[in-house]
């Protein structure tokens, strides 16, 4: 199957990007260099094309019930214009995907018919069709009245991240609508969102991101994506920097740090138990309640290599020569210039413990570090 292209593909090409296939999308992996892009986001600001992320809108009288049944967090805690991190789990509690759920200002979704509660959620790249089907199938089986629309091809999505990002976005917004949570986007609290105008386009502007820096994610109509991108004067960044930034903060990457077949993990194992509300009814709740009572054998944590080398996903972890887990992501941290990694480790090991990472057959000294690394 041919790769999908974002509306910004030509812009990236003009900027000299190197591309890679990611989740079925042709995406820029780097422009100038991962290190330069990474440092720009930590010290100033960088701009990412994240249009490969899925977008699913859910509206109608039973929209809240449908979202509550298929995500692990409590959507009823959201006021209009707020968002929350959440997971989508199977009956056995294994994570299928992680996501941000936005509650739209009332009546905003494409399929909305009035002032009802409606949602937008963001599945990971390449998961939009699977999630659309999951929502529609569950809705139909449960006899719920809700409209589900896959708007992935309708929206472009741009992330502006870094200490300078709030100022850049504030300057770019020419008009903020009355339904927004504050008069200016710089006054938004973390995870708040509202509609406003950038480069003449009506955009959904959210104070979210996945770099650990202050920043915004802007969803804009596909046809306006190039104009919105050009409204920001900062370092263009690719997926390479996005990966090193999120590893430094200990954020999960779908498909690497969890995968329903290759790395089946529950939210408790993956360290996102905070996004599980066991007092709500959702697919996987009973399995997760049982695991919450029994405890877990392995947990997601960080490892810092003390010897020379680069830790990578798939490398084995040992303590006293015995296997105690494995890595799922790793890199040479551009901020620290130290080799860092994330993975699953026996709960018998604690922060600060000395362990080893098997790098191409050699045991290299390492220690257990609770993320974030920076």
């Amino acid at each position, binding site marked *: 199957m041919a790769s999908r292209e974002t509306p910004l593909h030509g812009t990236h090409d003009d900027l*000299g990007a*190197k591309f890679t296939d990611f989740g079925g999308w042709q995406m820029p*992996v*780097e422009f100038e*260099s*991962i*290190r330069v892009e990474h440092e720009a986001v930590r010290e100033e600001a960088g701009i990412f094309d994240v249009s490969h992320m899925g977008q699913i809108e859910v509206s109608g009288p039973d929209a809240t019930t449908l979202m509550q049944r298929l995500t692990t967090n409590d959507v009823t805690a959201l006021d209009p214009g707020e968002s929350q991190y959440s997971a989508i789990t199977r009956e056995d509690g294994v994570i299928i995907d992680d996501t941000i759920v936005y509650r739209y200002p009332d009546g905003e979704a494409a399929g909305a018919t009035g002032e009802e509660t409606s949602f937008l959620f963001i599945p990971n790249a390449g998961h939009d069709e699977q999630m659309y089907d999951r929502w529609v199938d569950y809705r139909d089986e449960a006899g719920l009245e809700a409209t589900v629309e896959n708007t992935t091809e309708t929206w472009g999505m741009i992330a502006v991240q870094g200490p300078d990002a709030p100022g850049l976005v504030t300057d770019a917004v020419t008009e903020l609508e009355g339904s927004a949570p504050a008069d200016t986007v710089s006054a938004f609290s973390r995870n708040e969102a509202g509609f406003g105008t950038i480069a003449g386009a009506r955009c959904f502007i959210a104070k979210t991101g996945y770099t650990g820096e202050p920043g915004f994610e802007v969803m804009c109509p596909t046809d306006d994506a190039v104009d919105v991108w050009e409204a920001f004067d900062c370092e263009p960044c690719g997926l*390479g920097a996005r*990966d*090193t930034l999120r590893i430094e903060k200990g954020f999960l990457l779908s498909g690497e740090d969890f995968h329903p077949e290759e790395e089946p993990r529950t939210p408790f194992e993956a360290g996102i138990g905070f996004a599980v509300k066991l007092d709500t009814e959702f697919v996987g709740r009973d399995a997760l309640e049982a695991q919450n009572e029994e405890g877990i054998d392995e947990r997601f944590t960080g490892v810092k290599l003390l010897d*020379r*080398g*680069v830790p*990578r996903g798939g490398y084995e972890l040992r303590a006293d020569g015995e296997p105690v887990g494995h890595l799922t992501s790793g*890199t*040479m941290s*551009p901020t620290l210039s130290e*080799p860092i990694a994330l993975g699953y480790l026996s709960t018998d090991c604690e922060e600060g413990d000395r362990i080893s990472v098997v790098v*191409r057959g050699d045991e290299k000294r390492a220690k257990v570090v609770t993320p974030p690394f920076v």
Partner: protein
Amino acid sequence: MSFEIPDDLRYRETHEWTTTGDTVRFGISDFAQDELGDIVFVELPDVGDTVEQTGEFGVVESIKAVSDIYAPVSGEVTAVNDAVFDKPELVNEDPYGDGWLIEIEVSDEGEFDDLLDADEYEAQIE
């Protein structure tokens, strides 16, 4: 984008270069360092080890990828560029100069016939 491909070197399809003569240096090409991006770690054999033509003789890791590197010709290692252990970015900055990797005493000069010249290598990466 055009890459530097010195005329006086020989190349492997896998993007390593070698000088020619009795004692030669190996490195990776300008194209290879650009493809890999920011190089952060280099693993090389010790002086006295032998390397075999087409065999792996080390590893170059960038932030995004791990790459095995292959010997253009066979021989015994006579020197290793220790500078790239502390400053792996030398391979990015000067792949044919300060970013060289190892030096070997060639055991079979006939093996140079198996390598690409600059024009042939340029045609391969176009």
